[in-house]
Protein backbone atom coordinates (compact mmCIF):
# COMPACT_ATOMS: atom_id res chain seq x y z
CA UNK A 1 0.00 0.00 0.00
CA UNK A 2 1.18 3.46 -0.77
CA UNK A 3 2.11 5.33 2.30
CA UNK A 4 1.63 9.04 2.72
CA UNK A 5 3.56 10.66 5.43
CA UNK A 6 2.43 13.73 7.26
CA UNK A 7 4.37 15.21 10.05
CA UNK A 8 2.87 17.70 12.40
CA UNK A 9 4.37 18.72 15.66
CA UNK A 10 1.20 19.27 17.59
CA UNK A 11 -2.21 17.87 18.09
CA UNK A 12 -4.46 18.74 15.20
CA UNK A 13 -7.53 20.73 16.16
CA UNK A 14 -10.65 18.79 15.43
CA UNK A 15 -12.32 21.00 12.81
CA UNK A 16 -9.03 21.38 11.06
CA UNK A 17 -8.57 17.71 11.27
CA UNK A 18 -11.92 16.87 9.69
CA UNK A 19 -11.25 19.35 6.92
CA UNK A 20 -7.85 17.94 6.20
CA UNK A 21 -9.41 14.53 6.01
CA UNK A 22 -11.98 15.76 3.52
CA UNK A 23 -9.19 17.36 1.56
CA UNK A 24 -7.22 14.14 1.50
CA UNK A 25 -10.28 12.28 0.36
CA UNK A 26 -10.90 14.76 -2.41
CA UNK A 27 -7.33 14.45 -3.53
CA UNK A 28 -7.82 10.72 -3.77
CA UNK A 29 -5.17 10.07 -1.22
CA UNK A 30 -5.63 6.98 0.86
CA UNK A 31 -6.85 7.95 4.31
CA UNK A 32 -5.63 6.40 7.49
CA UNK A 33 -2.44 8.31 7.93
CA UNK A 34 -1.28 8.99 11.41
CA UNK A 35 -0.87 12.45 12.83
CA UNK A 36 1.86 13.17 15.26
CA UNK A 37 1.41 14.38 18.78
CA UNK A 38 4.09 13.91 21.38
CA UNK A 39 3.75 10.13 21.28
CA UNK A 40 2.35 9.63 17.82
CA UNK A 41 4.27 8.70 14.74
CA UNK A 42 3.28 7.80 11.23
CA UNK A 43 3.49 4.15 10.38
CA UNK A 44 2.74 1.68 7.65
CA UNK A 45 -0.84 0.51 7.72
CA UNK A 46 -1.71 -3.12 7.73
CA UNK A 47 -5.45 -2.81 7.40
CA UNK A 48 -8.16 -1.76 5.00
CA UNK A 49 -8.49 1.98 5.46
CA UNK A 50 -11.89 3.53 5.85
CA UNK A 51 -12.58 5.36 2.64
CA UNK A 52 -16.31 5.04 2.14
CA UNK A 53 -17.86 5.96 5.43
CA UNK A 54 -17.74 9.31 7.15
CA UNK A 55 -15.95 9.70 10.44
CA UNK A 56 -18.47 9.91 13.28
CA UNK A 57 -18.70 13.40 14.79
CA UNK A 58 -16.48 13.71 17.89
CA UNK A 59 -19.50 14.81 19.89
CA UNK A 60 -21.27 11.48 19.41
CA UNK A 61 -18.20 9.28 19.83
CA UNK A 62 -17.65 10.86 23.24
CA UNK A 63 -21.22 11.29 24.52
CA UNK A 64 -22.90 8.10 23.31
CA UNK A 65 -21.14 5.31 25.14
CA UNK A 66 -21.76 1.95 26.73
CA UNK A 67 -19.70 1.92 29.90
CA UNK A 68 -21.83 0.39 32.64
CA UNK A 69 -19.25 1.18 35.29
CA UNK A 70 -20.51 4.75 35.02
CA UNK A 71 -24.20 3.92 34.49
CA UNK A 72 -26.38 2.02 32.07
CA UNK A 73 -27.69 4.87 29.94
CA UNK A 74 -25.69 6.03 26.91
CA UNK A 75 -25.20 9.52 28.30
CA UNK A 76 -24.13 8.35 31.79
CA UNK A 77 -20.44 7.69 31.03
CA UNK A 78 -19.91 11.23 29.75
CA UNK A 79 -21.73 12.73 32.73
CA UNK A 80 -20.38 10.47 35.49
CA UNK A 81 -16.75 9.99 34.49
CA UNK A 82 -15.63 13.62 34.59
CA UNK A 83 -13.72 13.31 37.88
CA UNK A 84 -12.39 9.82 37.30
CA UNK A 85 -8.70 9.70 38.22
CA UNK A 86 -6.47 7.97 35.68
CA UNK A 87 -3.08 9.09 36.96
CA UNK A 88 -1.13 7.25 38.26
CA UNK A 89 -2.18 4.03 36.56
CA UNK A 90 -0.37 0.72 36.48
CA UNK A 91 -0.99 -2.25 34.28
CA UNK A 92 0.20 -5.67 35.34
CA UNK A 93 0.97 -8.33 32.75
CA UNK A 94 1.14 -11.73 34.41
CA UNK A 95 -0.21 -15.27 34.46
CA UNK A 96 1.45 -17.92 32.31
CA UNK A 97 4.55 -15.83 31.63
CA UNK A 98 8.21 -16.22 32.55
CA UNK A 99 8.63 -12.59 33.55
CA UNK A 100 5.57 -10.81 34.87
CA UNK A 101 5.81 -7.04 34.72
CA UNK A 102 4.00 -3.97 35.97
CA UNK A 103 4.19 -0.85 33.85
CA UNK A 104 2.72 2.58 34.31
CA UNK A 105 0.70 4.04 31.47
CA UNK A 106 3.32 6.78 31.11
CA UNK A 107 6.06 4.19 30.72
CA UNK A 108 4.02 2.33 28.12
CA UNK A 109 3.28 5.52 26.18
CA UNK A 110 6.96 6.44 26.18
CA UNK A 111 8.04 2.98 25.14
CA UNK A 112 5.53 2.42 22.39
CA UNK A 113 4.52 5.31 20.14
CA UNK A 114 0.89 5.64 19.14
CA UNK A 115 -0.35 5.86 15.59
CA UNK A 116 -3.75 6.66 14.17
CA UNK A 117 -6.13 3.89 13.20
CA UNK A 118 -9.47 4.74 11.65
CA UNK A 119 -11.67 1.77 12.43
CA UNK A 120 -15.30 0.96 12.02
CA UNK A 121 -16.85 0.26 15.42
CA UNK A 122 -19.86 -2.05 15.52
CA UNK A 123 -21.86 -2.41 18.71
CA UNK A 124 -23.75 -5.64 19.40
CA UNK A 125 -26.85 -3.45 19.84
CA UNK A 126 -26.95 -2.79 16.12
CA UNK A 127 -25.33 0.63 15.75
CA UNK A 128 -21.96 1.65 14.41
CA UNK A 129 -19.44 4.48 14.30
CA UNK A 130 -16.21 5.23 12.48
CA UNK A 131 -13.60 6.38 14.98
CA UNK A 132 -10.03 7.64 14.46
CA UNK A 133 -8.28 5.97 17.39
CA UNK A 134 -4.77 6.66 18.53
CA UNK A 135 -3.00 3.58 19.76
CA UNK A 136 -0.50 0.84 19.15
CA UNK A 137 -0.72 -2.84 18.30
CA UNK A 138 -1.29 -4.84 21.48
CA UNK A 139 1.41 -7.30 20.38
CA UNK A 140 4.04 -4.61 20.98
CA UNK A 141 3.03 -4.56 24.63
CA UNK A 142 2.57 -8.32 24.96
CA UNK A 143 6.05 -8.86 23.50
CA UNK A 144 7.48 -7.36 26.68
CA UNK A 145 6.77 -10.67 28.41
CA UNK A 146 7.54 -14.28 27.46
CA UNK A 147 4.43 -16.46 27.65
CA UNK A 148 4.98 -20.07 28.70
CA UNK A 149 3.90 -22.93 26.43
CA UNK A 150 0.77 -23.37 28.57
CA UNK A 151 -0.61 -19.95 27.67
CA UNK A 152 -3.49 -20.14 25.21
CA UNK A 153 -5.66 -17.11 25.94
CA UNK A 154 -5.30 -13.56 27.15
CA UNK A 155 -7.62 -12.25 29.83
CA UNK A 156 -8.24 -8.53 30.28
CA UNK A 157 -9.48 -7.10 33.55
CA UNK A 158 -10.79 -3.56 33.89
CA UNK A 159 -10.49 -1.45 36.99
CA UNK A 160 -12.70 -2.05 40.03
CA UNK A 161 -13.34 1.15 41.91
CA UNK A 162 -16.95 1.55 43.09
CA UNK A 163 -16.05 4.77 44.90
CA UNK A 164 -15.38 6.43 41.59
CA UNK A 165 -17.58 4.24 39.41
CA UNK A 166 -21.21 4.52 40.45
CA UNK A 167 -22.36 1.69 38.22
CA UNK A 168 -20.18 -0.82 40.05
CA UNK A 169 -22.26 -0.33 43.19
CA UNK A 170 -24.99 -2.36 41.48
CA UNK A 171 -24.64 -5.98 40.37
CA UNK A 172 -25.43 -5.18 36.73
CA UNK A 173 -22.43 -7.30 35.67
CA UNK A 174 -19.96 -9.33 37.71
CA UNK A 175 -17.44 -6.61 38.38
CA UNK A 176 -14.70 -5.98 37.53
CA UNK A 177 -15.33 -6.15 33.79
CA UNK A 178 -13.53 -9.10 32.24
CA UNK A 179 -12.84 -9.89 28.61
CA UNK A 180 -10.71 -12.35 26.72
CA UNK A 181 -9.05 -13.13 23.40
CA UNK A 182 -7.25 -16.11 21.97
CA UNK A 183 -3.50 -15.41 21.84
CA UNK A 184 -3.46 -15.21 18.05
CA UNK A 185 -6.34 -12.71 18.15
CA UNK A 186 -4.53 -10.65 20.76
CA UNK A 187 -1.31 -10.70 18.74
CA UNK A 188 -3.05 -9.75 15.48
CA UNK A 189 -1.78 -6.43 14.11
CA UNK A 190 -5.32 -5.01 13.93
CA UNK A 191 -5.80 -5.45 17.69
CA UNK A 192 -4.74 -2.23 19.35
CA UNK A 193 -4.38 -0.65 22.74
CA UNK A 194 -5.94 2.78 22.53
CA UNK A 195 -4.47 5.90 24.12
CA UNK A 196 -6.52 8.55 22.35
CA UNK A 197 -9.03 9.48 19.69
CA UNK A 198 -9.51 12.29 17.15
CA UNK A 199 -5.93 13.38 17.77
CA UNK A 200 -6.67 13.94 21.46
CA UNK A 201 -6.04 12.15 24.70
CA UNK A 202 -8.52 9.38 25.44
CA UNK A 203 -11.55 10.80 27.33
CA UNK A 204 -12.58 9.00 30.52
CA UNK A 205 -15.92 7.93 29.04
CA UNK A 206 -14.10 6.15 26.21
CA UNK A 207 -12.00 4.02 28.55
CA UNK A 208 -9.05 6.14 29.69
CA UNK A 209 -6.22 5.71 30.27
CA UNK A 210 -5.84 2.57 28.19
CA UNK A 211 -8.43 0.45 26.42
CA UNK A 212 -8.54 -2.32 23.90
CA UNK A 213 -9.97 -2.12 20.37
CA UNK A 214 -10.63 -5.27 18.37
CA UNK A 215 -12.30 -3.88 15.25
CA UNK A 216 -13.70 -7.12 13.82
CA UNK A 217 -15.53 -7.96 17.04
CA UNK A 218 -18.56 -6.36 18.68
CA UNK A 219 -17.67 -3.34 20.77
CA UNK A 220 -18.10 -4.96 24.19
CA UNK A 221 -15.02 -7.14 23.53
CA UNK A 222 -12.91 -4.00 23.66
CA UNK A 223 -12.43 -3.64 27.42
CA UNK A 224 -11.88 -0.17 28.90
CA UNK A 225 -9.65 1.14 31.69
CA UNK A 226 -7.55 -2.03 31.77
CA UNK A 227 -5.47 -2.81 34.85
CA UNK A 228 -4.47 -6.40 34.22
CA UNK A 229 -3.54 -8.51 31.22
CA UNK A 230 -3.17 -12.16 32.11
CA UNK A 231 -1.97 -15.05 29.95
CA UNK A 232 -4.11 -18.06 30.82
CA UNK A 233 -4.50 -21.73 29.91
CA UNK A 234 -8.28 -21.86 29.69
CA UNK A 235 -10.76 -19.73 27.79
CA UNK A 236 -11.67 -16.83 30.07
CA UNK A 237 -15.34 -16.26 30.92
CA UNK A 238 -16.09 -12.65 30.06
CA UNK A 239 -18.51 -10.54 32.10
CA UNK A 240 -21.10 -10.63 29.34
CA UNK A 241 -20.78 -14.40 28.84
CA UNK A 242 -21.37 -14.72 32.55
CA UNK A 243 -24.44 -12.46 32.41
CA UNK A 244 -26.09 -14.20 29.46
CA UNK A 245 -24.24 -17.13 27.86
CA UNK A 246 -26.79 -17.71 25.11
CA UNK A 247 -26.55 -14.11 23.95
CA UNK A 248 -22.84 -13.35 24.19
CA UNK A 249 -20.24 -15.87 23.09
CA UNK A 250 -16.51 -15.81 23.65
CA UNK A 251 -15.65 -14.93 20.06
CA UNK A 252 -18.34 -12.30 19.37
CA UNK A 253 -17.04 -11.63 15.88
CA UNK A 254 -19.24 -9.24 13.92
CA UNK A 255 -21.38 -11.67 11.95
CA UNK A 256 -24.54 -10.67 10.06
CA UNK A 257 -25.53 -14.35 9.78
CA UNK A 258 -25.80 -14.99 13.50
CA UNK A 259 -28.73 -13.14 14.94
CA UNK A 260 -28.79 -11.94 18.52
CA UNK A 261 -31.88 -13.25 20.37
CA UNK A 262 -33.21 -9.72 20.75
CA UNK A 263 -32.06 -7.85 17.69
CA UNK A 264 -30.97 -8.48 14.13
CA UNK A 265 -27.30 -8.36 13.26
CA UNK A 266 -27.93 -8.19 9.50
CA UNK A 267 -28.03 -4.41 9.46
CA UNK A 268 -26.83 -1.51 11.55
CA UNK A 269 -27.74 2.11 12.15
CA UNK A 270 -25.01 4.66 11.60
CA UNK A 271 -24.55 7.00 14.57
CA UNK A 272 -24.91 10.65 13.68
CA UNK A 273 -27.21 10.11 10.70
CA UNK A 274 -30.67 11.69 10.70
CA UNK A 275 -33.94 9.93 11.34
CA UNK A 276 -34.65 9.39 7.64
CA UNK A 277 -31.39 7.54 6.95
CA UNK A 278 -31.78 3.83 6.30
CA UNK A 279 -29.85 1.09 8.08
CA UNK A 280 -26.78 -0.18 6.30
CA UNK A 281 -25.80 -3.80 5.78
CA UNK A 282 -23.48 -5.30 8.36
CA UNK A 283 -20.40 -6.95 6.85
CA UNK A 284 -18.78 -10.17 8.08
CA UNK A 285 -15.91 -9.43 10.49
CA UNK A 286 -17.02 -5.79 10.27
CA UNK A 287 -15.30 -5.60 6.88
CA UNK A 288 -11.91 -6.84 8.15
CA UNK A 289 -12.36 -10.34 6.72
CA UNK A 290 -9.32 -10.12 4.43
CA UNK A 291 -7.13 -9.60 7.45
CA UNK A 292 -8.72 -11.84 10.07
CA UNK A 293 -10.84 -14.57 8.42
CA UNK A 294 -7.77 -16.84 8.45
CA UNK A 295 -7.83 -16.91 12.25
CA UNK A 296 -11.04 -18.92 12.11
CA UNK A 297 -10.33 -21.38 9.30
CA UNK A 298 -12.31 -24.56 9.77
CA UNK A 299 -14.36 -23.18 12.65
CA UNK A 300 -18.15 -23.15 12.69
CA UNK A 301 -18.78 -19.51 13.53
CA UNK A 302 -22.47 -20.19 14.17
CA UNK A 303 -21.53 -22.42 17.07
CA UNK A 304 -18.54 -20.34 18.09
CA UNK A 305 -20.45 -17.09 18.07
Amino acid at each position, binding site marked *: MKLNKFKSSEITPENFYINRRKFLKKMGIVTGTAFASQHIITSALSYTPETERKITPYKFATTYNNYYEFGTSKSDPHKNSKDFITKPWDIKIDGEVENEITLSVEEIKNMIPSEERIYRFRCVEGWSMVVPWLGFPLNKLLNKVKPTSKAKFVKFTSVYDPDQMKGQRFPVLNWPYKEGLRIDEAMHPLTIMVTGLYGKELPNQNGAPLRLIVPWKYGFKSAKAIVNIKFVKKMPISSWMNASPNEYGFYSNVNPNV*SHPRWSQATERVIGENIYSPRIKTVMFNGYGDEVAGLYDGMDLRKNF
Partner: protein
Amino acid sequence: MIRIFKPTIFVLCLIPFIIIAYQILFNQLGAEPVKQVTHHTGEWTLRFILLSLAMTPLKNITKILAWIKYRRMLGLFAFFYGTLHLLTYIGFDYQFNFDPIIDDVLNKKFIFIGFAAWLLMLPLAITSNQKMVLILKQNWKKIHRLSYLIGIFAVLHFIWLSKTIFFEPLIYLIILITLLTLRLDFIKFLFKKKSVT
Protein backbone atom coordinates in the same frame (compact mmCIF):
# COMPACT_ATOMS: atom_id res chain seq x y z
CA MET B 1 -65.28 20.12 37.31
CA ILE B 2 -65.10 17.41 34.68
CA ARG B 3 -65.67 20.04 32.01
CA ILE B 4 -62.47 21.80 32.93
CA PHE B 5 -60.45 18.75 33.90
CA LYS B 6 -61.05 16.67 30.81
CA PRO B 7 -59.73 19.11 28.20
CA THR B 8 -56.80 19.98 30.49
CA ILE B 9 -55.84 16.34 30.84
CA PHE B 10 -56.27 15.83 27.11
CA VAL B 11 -53.72 18.57 26.41
CA LEU B 12 -51.37 17.19 29.08
CA CYS B 13 -51.54 13.78 27.41
CA LEU B 14 -50.42 15.37 24.15
CA ILE B 15 -47.22 16.81 25.64
CA PRO B 16 -45.07 13.71 24.95
CA PHE B 17 -46.22 13.87 21.34
CA ILE B 18 -45.40 17.57 21.06
CA ILE B 19 -41.94 16.97 22.53
CA ILE B 20 -41.02 14.24 20.07
CA ALA B 21 -42.55 16.08 17.11
CA TYR B 22 -40.43 19.10 18.01
CA GLN B 23 -37.32 16.96 18.31
CA ILE B 24 -37.95 15.38 14.91
CA LEU B 25 -38.65 18.68 13.16
CA PHE B 26 -35.69 20.49 14.67
CA ASN B 27 -33.20 17.63 14.56
CA GLN B 28 -32.79 17.34 18.32
CA LEU B 29 -32.77 13.58 18.51
CA GLY B 30 -29.10 12.99 19.26
CA ALA B 31 -26.80 10.17 18.21
CA GLU B 32 -29.39 7.55 17.34
CA PRO B 33 -32.59 9.35 16.28
CA VAL B 34 -34.66 6.27 15.43
CA LYS B 35 -33.96 4.73 18.79
CA GLN B 36 -34.82 7.96 20.57
CA VAL B 37 -38.26 8.13 18.91
CA THR B 38 -38.84 4.40 19.45
CA HIS B 39 -38.02 4.59 23.15
CA HIS B 40 -39.97 7.78 23.76
CA THR B 41 -43.18 6.52 22.13
CA GLY B 42 -42.77 3.07 23.67
CA GLU B 43 -42.28 4.42 27.15
CA TRP B 44 -45.36 6.63 26.93
CA THR B 45 -47.46 3.76 25.57
CA LEU B 46 -46.60 1.72 28.62
CA ARG B 47 -47.27 4.65 30.95
CA PHE B 48 -50.70 5.28 29.44
CA ILE B 49 -51.58 1.58 29.61
CA LEU B 50 -50.77 1.58 33.31
CA LEU B 51 -52.58 4.90 33.88
CA SER B 52 -55.73 3.57 32.23
CA LEU B 53 -55.47 0.44 34.38
CA ALA B 54 -55.14 2.61 37.48
CA MET B 55 -58.52 4.33 37.16
CA THR B 56 -60.75 1.51 38.42
CA PRO B 57 -58.61 0.75 41.51
CA LEU B 58 -58.48 4.50 42.23
CA LYS B 59 -62.24 4.65 42.05
CA ASN B 60 -62.56 1.71 44.44
CA ILE B 61 -60.06 3.05 46.91
CA THR B 62 -61.08 6.71 46.92
CA LYS B 63 -64.82 6.06 46.40
CA ILE B 64 -64.78 8.83 43.83
CA LEU B 65 -66.58 7.81 40.65
CA ALA B 66 -65.04 10.54 38.47
CA TRP B 67 -61.85 8.54 37.88
CA ILE B 68 -63.75 6.30 35.48
CA LYS B 69 -64.50 9.24 33.21
CA TYR B 70 -60.82 9.41 32.25
CA ARG B 71 -60.31 5.71 31.64
CA ARG B 72 -61.35 5.72 28.00
CA MET B 73 -59.28 8.78 27.12
CA LEU B 74 -56.15 7.35 28.75
CA GLY B 75 -56.71 4.02 27.02
CA LEU B 76 -57.05 5.74 23.65
CA PHE B 77 -53.84 7.68 24.29
CA ALA B 78 -52.14 4.35 25.00
CA PHE B 79 -53.37 3.19 21.59
CA PHE B 80 -52.25 6.46 19.99
CA TYR B 81 -48.70 6.25 21.37
CA GLY B 82 -48.58 2.51 20.71
CA THR B 83 -49.46 3.14 17.08
CA LEU B 84 -46.76 5.82 16.80
CA HIS B 85 -44.33 3.36 18.38
CA LEU B 86 -45.23 0.69 15.82
CA LEU B 87 -45.06 3.16 12.92
CA THR B 88 -41.62 4.35 14.06
CA TYR B 89 -40.41 0.78 13.96
CA ILE B 90 -41.95 0.00 10.58
CA GLY B 91 -41.43 3.35 8.88
CA PHE B 92 -38.32 4.98 10.31
CA ASP B 93 -36.38 1.94 11.47
CA TYR B 94 -37.09 -0.47 8.61
CA GLN B 95 -38.30 2.00 5.96
CA PHE B 96 -41.36 -0.17 5.20
CA ASN B 97 -39.07 -3.05 4.28
CA PHE B 98 -41.33 -5.87 5.46
CA ASP B 99 -39.06 -8.90 5.14
CA PRO B 100 -36.88 -8.12 8.16
CA ILE B 101 -39.96 -6.96 10.07
CA ILE B 102 -41.79 -10.27 9.56
CA ASP B 103 -38.58 -12.05 10.48
CA ASP B 104 -38.36 -10.01 13.69
CA VAL B 105 -42.00 -10.60 14.65
CA LEU B 106 -41.62 -14.35 14.23
CA ASN B 107 -38.16 -14.77 15.74
CA LYS B 108 -37.75 -12.13 18.42
CA LYS B 109 -40.00 -12.78 21.37
CA PHE B 110 -39.99 -9.19 22.59
CA ILE B 111 -41.15 -7.96 19.19
CA PHE B 112 -43.72 -10.73 18.94
CA ILE B 113 -45.27 -9.87 22.28
CA GLY B 114 -45.11 -6.13 21.60
CA PHE B 115 -46.87 -6.58 18.30
CA ALA B 116 -49.43 -8.84 19.99
CA ALA B 117 -50.08 -6.13 22.57
CA TRP B 118 -50.77 -3.60 19.81
CA LEU B 119 -53.10 -6.04 18.01
CA LEU B 120 -55.06 -6.56 21.22
CA MET B 121 -55.45 -2.81 21.60
CA LEU B 122 -57.18 -2.59 18.20
CA PRO B 123 -60.57 -4.09 19.20
CA LEU B 124 -60.54 -2.02 22.38
CA ALA B 125 -59.95 1.19 20.45
CA ILE B 126 -62.65 0.32 17.91
CA THR B 127 -65.23 -0.50 20.59
CA SER B 128 -64.35 2.41 22.83
CA ASN B 129 -67.26 4.72 22.04
CA GLN B 130 -70.56 4.92 23.91
CA LYS B 131 -72.51 3.42 21.03
CA MET B 132 -70.46 0.25 21.17
CA VAL B 133 -71.01 -0.02 24.91
CA LEU B 134 -74.76 -0.08 24.25
CA ILE B 135 -74.54 -2.48 21.33
CA LEU B 136 -72.20 -4.96 22.99
CA LYS B 137 -73.82 -4.76 26.44
CA GLN B 138 -72.35 -7.50 28.67
CA ASN B 139 -69.80 -8.46 26.03
CA TRP B 140 -68.24 -5.00 26.12
CA LYS B 141 -66.92 -5.63 29.61
CA LYS B 142 -65.57 -9.00 28.59
CA ILE B 143 -63.76 -7.58 25.56
CA HIS B 144 -62.27 -4.77 27.57
CA ARG B 145 -60.83 -7.20 30.08
CA LEU B 146 -58.19 -7.67 27.37
CA SER B 147 -56.58 -4.56 28.83
CA TYR B 148 -55.11 -6.71 31.64
CA LEU B 149 -53.45 -8.93 29.05
CA ILE B 150 -52.21 -5.86 27.15
CA GLY B 151 -50.63 -4.57 30.34
CA ILE B 152 -48.87 -7.89 30.93
CA PHE B 153 -47.68 -8.09 27.32
CA ALA B 154 -46.42 -4.52 27.33
CA VAL B 155 -44.38 -5.01 30.51
CA LEU B 156 -42.99 -8.32 29.20
CA HIS B 157 -42.02 -6.49 25.99
CA PHE B 158 -39.99 -4.04 28.06
CA ILE B 159 -38.40 -6.72 30.26
CA TRP B 160 -37.43 -8.92 27.32
CA LEU B 161 -35.80 -6.12 25.37
CA SER B 162 -33.66 -5.04 28.31
CA LYS B 163 -30.07 -6.18 28.31
CA THR B 164 -29.63 -7.16 31.94
CA ILE B 165 -31.79 -6.82 35.01
CA PHE B 166 -32.53 -3.15 34.92
CA PHE B 167 -34.28 -1.01 37.42
CA GLU B 168 -36.85 0.58 35.10
CA PRO B 169 -38.66 -2.50 33.73
CA LEU B 170 -38.88 -3.80 37.29
CA ILE B 171 -40.66 -0.65 38.44
CA TYR B 172 -43.24 -1.03 35.69
CA LEU B 173 -43.66 -4.69 36.63
CA ILE B 174 -44.29 -3.82 40.27
CA ILE B 175 -46.86 -1.15 39.32
CA LEU B 176 -48.62 -3.59 37.00
CA ILE B 177 -48.74 -6.35 39.60
CA THR B 178 -50.12 -3.86 42.14
CA LEU B 179 -52.82 -2.65 39.75
CA LEU B 180 -53.89 -6.17 38.83
CA THR B 181 -53.83 -7.36 42.44
CA LEU B 182 -56.15 -4.53 43.47
CA ARG B 183 -58.72 -6.05 41.11
CA LEU B 184 -58.77 -9.42 42.83
CA ASP B 185 -62.06 -10.07 44.61
CA PHE B 186 -60.66 -10.72 48.06
CA ILE B 187 -58.64 -7.48 47.93
CA LYS B 188 -61.71 -5.52 46.87
CA PHE B 189 -63.55 -7.19 49.71
CA LEU B 190 -61.03 -5.75 52.14
CA PHE B 191 -61.76 -2.24 50.93
CA LYS B 192 -65.50 -2.73 51.16
CA LYS B 193 -65.20 -4.09 54.64
CA LYS B 194 -63.21 -1.07 55.72
CA SER B 195 -65.79 1.31 54.35
CA VAL B 196 -68.57 -0.42 56.28
CA THR B 197 -66.88 -0.09 59.64
